């Protein structure tokens, strides 16, 4: 038995290393391909002198500072507002059934890729959009030609809005998956009972007692959200201003510039983009500290409420806002995808047709299959590696002397956390180009392999972050009891932990699928377009002239991951309800000590 368990332990070590390598090697190789040109070294165009010239040229641009500021303000503002919204929703509804209903309400925007979500908002908010139609009563009216707020405005309000709409569901999902862990759940219930019995309102209990338990567990995913918000390309491209645009958009533009010497500028800007992300993180850490200090004062103040009315109002506003957006989006997208002519200001199209769906489905069958194969392979790999690596953390601490175990854990943990954040910190367009360069040198025909690697770099962190919380918080007494009953670590892993974690595992898998489905640049750059996915087709359609085809593609982009999440929520309940496990144990293992 010992040999067997050691074998399993070695497998988990291997998985951990493989995970580290898969996360770091592609990104670091890509980074080399960015940092060198940033300092003026790019032999392909005859640039060999290492200097700071490129940075000097970048900062000499009139609007460099404005672009950096726009990236920072939109990213930071949206993340902070999204946190406020998500936490106030949790505070108001965390003890009620409303939460599970909210998850349903939010799911469309959770699964919609960023580009698709932006297109949907554009459909709703433009002067000829659905909301304008609802409030135009003159049937001969033509759409307003005045400037619209939230679209292309200088402050980037449209970007902020779209980011918030995407972020709130994600933060909520992360928080709920932490709060559903048995240990945390117990703690929360305990705190709640104490707080309420001392006369604190449930909202103030949440902010004073529960959030301090919850926050450290979702801090990493939150920072990932923040980094994405300051460096993403899709949303500012579709909704943002271009006088100037955000820095990330400029990076993309310079990388795609026909004048290849602009690659140098693009690389320097990509390096600056990493700095912008770092500043944003610093800013949030500062705000955390201020809030922690304020929080201590509010503990001592003894006040039994916590801006309850304001937060309730905010929550209602957020819920109502989502209800309107989701209903409007669904109505609009579905109708547009089947609409004949639909003149303004009519609320309904003049007729229906399947023409657009015919065009899309004719063209999209192969991309859909590619998307599913790729997403399935990538998510499955990520899931297996992440589970084994997490198990390795547990086994690692058992297999070492107690004093050494701690430092092993913290060192390995720190290394892993850095690795996890690498792909989320470096703008994709930058390191992916470097990656393509290296992929061209080695194995240039293995297109599926390259795109698989490019996707795994993005999928792995999310699968890890989403699963780690649940895994690390799994009540270790289950495993201890099983082991004391003679089960080997591998049996504990397979028959105790995996079934107990069925819910989070399925959610992580579905998340992996959704992340893989939504990748545009990694797919396009790694395959050179040889493998088309739903998202590459959708972005091409979004750059095209037909709103109707765009609508159909957005629907496909939403439906694919949604099916994944629905299965993830539904299947564990069917397969692994605790009662069934109990019955199974009774019927199939009459001799609990039979084990090894």
């Amino acid at each position, binding site marked *: 038995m010992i040999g067997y368990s050691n074998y399993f332990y070695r497998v988990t070590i291997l998985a951990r290393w493989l995970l580290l390598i898969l996360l770091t090697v592609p990104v670091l190789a890509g980074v080399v391909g960015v940092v060198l040109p940033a300092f003026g070294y790019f032999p*392909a165009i005859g640039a060999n002198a290492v200097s700071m010239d490129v940075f000097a040229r970048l900062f000499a641009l009139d609007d460099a500072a404005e672009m950096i500021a726009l990236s920072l303000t939109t990213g930071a503002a949206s993340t902070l507002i999204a946190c406020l919204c998500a936490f106030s929703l949790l505070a108001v509804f965390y003890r009620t059934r409303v939460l599970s209903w909210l998850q349903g309400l939010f799911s469309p925007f959770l699964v919609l890729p960023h580009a698709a979500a932006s297109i949907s908002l554009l459909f709703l908010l433009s002067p000829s959009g659905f909301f304008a139609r609802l409030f135009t009563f003159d049937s001969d009216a*033509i759409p307003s030609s005045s*400037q619209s707020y939230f679209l292309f405005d200088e402050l980037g309000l449209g970007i902020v809005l779209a980011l918030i709409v995407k972020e709130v569901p994600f933060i909520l999902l992360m928080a709920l998956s932490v709060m559903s862990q048995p240990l945390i759940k117990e703690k929360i219930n305990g705190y709640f009972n104490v707080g309420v019995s001392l006369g604190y309102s449930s909202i103030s209990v949440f902010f004073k007692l529960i959030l301090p338990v919850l926050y450290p567990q979702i801090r990493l995913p939150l920072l990932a959200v923040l980094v994405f918000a300051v460096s993403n390309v899709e949303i500012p491209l579709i909704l943002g201003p271009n006088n100037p*645009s955000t820095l990330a958009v400029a990076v993309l533009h310079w990388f795609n510039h026909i004048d290849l010497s602009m690659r140098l500028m693009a690389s320097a800007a990509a390096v600056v983009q990493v700095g912008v992300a770092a500043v944003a993180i610093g800013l949030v850490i500062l705000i955390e500290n201020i809030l922690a200090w304020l929080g201590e004062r509010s503990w001592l103040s003894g006040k039994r409420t916590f801006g309850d009315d304001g937060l309730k109002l905010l929550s209602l506003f957020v819920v109502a806002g989502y209800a309107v957006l989701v209903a409007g989006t669904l109505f609009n997208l579905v109708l547009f995808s089947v609409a004949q002519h639909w003149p*303004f200001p009519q609320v309904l199209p003049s007729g229906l047709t399947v023409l657009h769906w015919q065009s899309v489905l004719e063209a999209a069958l192969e991309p859909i299959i590619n998307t599913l194969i790729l997403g399935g392979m990538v998510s499955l790999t990520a899931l297996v590696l992440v589970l084994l690596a997490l198990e390795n953390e547990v086994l690692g601490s058992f297999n070492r002397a107690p004093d050494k175990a701690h430092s092993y854990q913290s060192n390995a943990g720190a290394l892993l956390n850095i690795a996890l954040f690498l792909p989320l910190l470096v703008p994709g367009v930058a390191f992916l180009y470097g990656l393509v360069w290296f992929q061209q040198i080695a194995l240039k025909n293995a297109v599926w392999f390259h795109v698989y690697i490019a996707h795994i770099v993005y999928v792995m962190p999310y699968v890890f972050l989403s699963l780690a919380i649940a895994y690390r918080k799994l009540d270790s007494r289950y495993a201890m009891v099983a082991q004391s009953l003679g089960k080997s670590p591998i049996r504990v892993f397979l028959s105790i932990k995996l079934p107990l974690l069925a819910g989070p595992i399925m959610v992580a898998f579905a998340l992996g699928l959704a992340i893989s489905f939504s990748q545009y640049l990694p797919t396009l750059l790694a395959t050179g377009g*040889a493998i088309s996915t739903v998202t590459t087709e959708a972005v091409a359609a979004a750059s095209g002239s037909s709103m109707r085809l765009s609508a159909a593609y957005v629907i496909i982009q939403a439906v694919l991951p949604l099916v994944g999440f629905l299965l993830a929520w539904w299947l564990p309940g069917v397969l692994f309800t605790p009662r069934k496990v109990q019955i199974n144990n009774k019927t199939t293992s009459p001799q609990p000590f039979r084990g090894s």
Partner: protein
Amino acid sequence: MRLHAWGGSAQVNSYLQWVAQQVESKYGIRLQHVKLADTSDAVSRVLAEKAAGNNSNGSVDLIWINGENFAAMKKHGLLVQNWVNDIDNFALTNPEDNPAMITDFGEPTEGMEAPWGKASMVFYYRKTHLEKLNLTVPKNIHELMQFAQQAPGRFTYPVPTDYLGISFVKYVAIALNQAQSELFYAPVTPSALSQITPALWQYLDQLHPNLWQKGEYFVRQASKLQRMVGSGELSLAFSFTAAEIPSAVERFDLPLDIRTYSMSDGSLANVHFIGLTFNSANKAEAKAVVNFLLSPEAQAKKQRVQVWGDDTVLAMSKLSQAEQALFSTTQSHPSALDKTQSTLLFAEPHTSWTDALRQAWEERYGARY
């Protein structure tokens, strides 16, 4: 076999699907249309391959290009030279007597790319909007200014990094400088540029505050223009493919009240091409595909409004009676361009003007990304 081509038009995409079926059944060639959002993505890729030493097994075989993308590929040696003379049907374009077939924006093609289709700039508008706003159709550059001033926010043009955007700037530049139009057909010089810009800036300075979003925001892609005319946010726009307009009406993407016309003071015109990359592993198959693209059958199908409506590059004088008959379909869609009217055409300026005008524009109005 991979053909890398912009994938934003349903008509072009379905035409290429038909091409793929044809070459598969005729020659057993499997043709894949790689849909690009931006053609320069593919140019970058071929360059990356060259930088990495991939000289014989590239991922791009054929690429749909013209103008700057061609100039960049030519400059970096990314295309095969003189391959078009191996294409039987290339002779049907009558290249000896038709320099437009071997000149891409003033740049000699040196046999690196085969002509595929041609286009000239047309304008289109919402008839009901103009009636409601009590406006007449602007027929020249000066009437366009009056239109913009009387109906602020109802017209715009894309950023000059977009093909149609820079084309609009060129149209304005040429139309306002007709007395010295010979300047445009030689490589640009600082003095030539300074001769044509005063009139151009005066015009654009006056036009911009009357554009959509007050000229603060310029759309990134030409296709957005068609969307916004379709949704009614714009009342007037322009395009390089006259035939895409009636076919967009047929597909419900543009409303029924759309009318198409050409400016009476001249329309910018050019040819678009198919290039063969230096590191294609399937050169023989690629040539067979290009030969098919230049066949009277494929060209006639492409010219049909219901399909794509892209004008043929074949010279009718080189075709047999039966082949000519393929092209003579009657087209009378209310939204289509009236082809019986003769139009004055401006040839594309020398390719060096594109960069010069764009840079000057960006210096004056700010680079838009």
